[in-house]
């Protein structure tokens, strides 16, 4: 993409609990903010791209959301790629904008997984449920076990990820969980599915988030100096269930990052910050290593020694991520990256020039990578 398409506006609801509210109303609230932020009229949106709601997948969901927005877009659709869907949708929207099919795309997600149904996260995993195989978390517990056995990883390395996210989220007034975490508290927290502790696991949150994309030319004509350029996008789908993968510690995240960095034509060392999909702490260690930012098995040691805060090795999940800001699947990470690159973040990385974002879903079944440049 190399800057031909930009993110022109972002918006989100407060994250946490929205009892009694409909997920589509949360999307409309976030979209209203994103459209105003982009400085366009609602009627100028001609693409509506919705991530399927985790808690209740349905047919014709893109049309249900468009109806609530009072729109009859050229392109309206919903996608399921688990937690990789938001970057997936952005990729297809960017291609449609670049091809001249549409001018302004709305990417959006809303859900009430906290106060509504979170049955999807506790689900029986097919016929293997007869063996007691339940929940999303269990797949990550298998990967966490394989990781710590292969690299002899102490618990403190996983904790370094949780501490960084939680300490950033504690400073974010819109975050779902604003409770800083200490190493002692992490190590004392009980196992849920051993080796996963409660604090290794992301939140389950209600909330809505949205962003608007347009061409760089259109944003410039409107004088939108806060538009953030999309430099690179990548995807890779592992597809196989966790237990059927030849190596539990290899997915297609490597290929996804290679695709995005090749497109962006930037050096990996030039990344100013990373918003990594922290559904579980092991996912972050794996992703940092898959992205070539740390040697295999050493991301946790590096995080512990050099820090993941603003002054650390790599400023990470600066608004709290899924572990603290919101358990909603991924759009909040992209929105925080946009705020960083506009120099409008609460915990601002000085001179942020390149932002790296990962999205992934299932039990590392899907992966997507996004690289953004600085506004202006």
């Amino acid at each position, binding site marked *: 993409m190399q800057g031909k398409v930009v993110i022109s506006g972002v918006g989100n609801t407060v994250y946490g609990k929205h009892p009694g509210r409909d997920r589509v109303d949360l999307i409309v609230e976030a979209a209203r903010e994103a459209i105003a932020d982009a400085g366009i009229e609602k009627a100028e949106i001609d693409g509506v791209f919705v991530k399927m709601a985790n808690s209740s997948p349905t047919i014709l969901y893109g049309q249900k959301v468009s109806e609530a927005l009072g729109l009859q877009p050229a392109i309206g659709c919903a996608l399921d790629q688990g937690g990789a869907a938001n970057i997936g949708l952005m990729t297809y929207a960017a291609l449609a904008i670049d091809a001249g099919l549409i001018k302004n795309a709305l990417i959006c997600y809303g859900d009430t997984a906290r106060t509504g149904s979170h049955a999807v996260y506790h689900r029986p*995993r097919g016929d293997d449920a*007869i063996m007691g*195989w339940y929940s999303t978390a269990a797949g990550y517990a298998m990967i966490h076990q394989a990781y710590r*056995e292969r690299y002899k990883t102490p618990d403190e390395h996983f904790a370094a990820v949780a501490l960084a996210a939680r300490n950033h989220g504690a400073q974010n007034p819109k975050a779902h969980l604003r409770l800083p975490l200490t190493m002692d508290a992490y190590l004392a927290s009980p196992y849920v599915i*051993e080796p996963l502790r409660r604090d290794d696991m992301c939140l389950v949150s209600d909330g809505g988030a949205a962003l608007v994309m347009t061409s760089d030319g259109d944003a410039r004509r409107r004088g939108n100096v806060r538009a953030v350029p999309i430099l690179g996008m990548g995807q890779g789908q592992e597809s196989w269930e966790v237990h059927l993968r030849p190596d539990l510690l290899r997915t297609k995240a490597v290929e996804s990052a290679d695709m995005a960095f090749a497109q962006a034509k930037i050096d990996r060392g030039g990344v100013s910050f990373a918003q990594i999909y922290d559904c579980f702490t092991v996912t972050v260690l794996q992703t940092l290593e898959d992205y070539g930012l740390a040697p295999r098995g050493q991301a946790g040691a590096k995080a512990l020694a050099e820090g993941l805060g603003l002054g650390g090795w790599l400023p990470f999940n600066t608004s709290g991520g899924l572990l603290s800001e919101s358990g909603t699947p991924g759009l909040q990470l992209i929105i925080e990256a946009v705020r960083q690159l506009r120099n409008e973040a609460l915990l601002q990385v000085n001179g942020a020039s390149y932002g790296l974002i990962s999205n992934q879903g299932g039990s590392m079944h899907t992966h997507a990578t996004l690289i953004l440049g600085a506004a202006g």
Partner: protein
Amino acid sequence: MSIPDVTRPDITRNATNAPYWSALSQGRLDFQHCRACGHQWLPARENCPNCLAADPQWQPASGRGKLVSWVVYHKAYAPHLEDRVPYNVAIVELAEGPRMISNIIGHPEGQGLYIGADVELAIARDFGLDLPRFRLQSD
């Protein structure tokens, strides 16, 4: 009309997986072998995921395998599991190649388990079915 017993999980029953469950009830663990390309796999499928040929053949496993990873549930995700926690769930790779989700008998809390441990089939009757569980060969 009978009321389904929600405290007892069940399996999908169809023509494709019927030989798998039938073999277990006869004390055997069978996997699928592709007559076209030789690929071997579980769970049951109509077509080979490698070459897509619709020519799978059921073959008996030796019952020997290795532990790939395991977890210990301290939380019950369904009512029938409340009096079973803590219990383990393991990934086992059969000597013939196929992988499966199982349990390691005798180590509910995972004590003494390690990746690469040699395991052997120990079919156990539970929930009205013959389930393919494993034990450590060293036990």
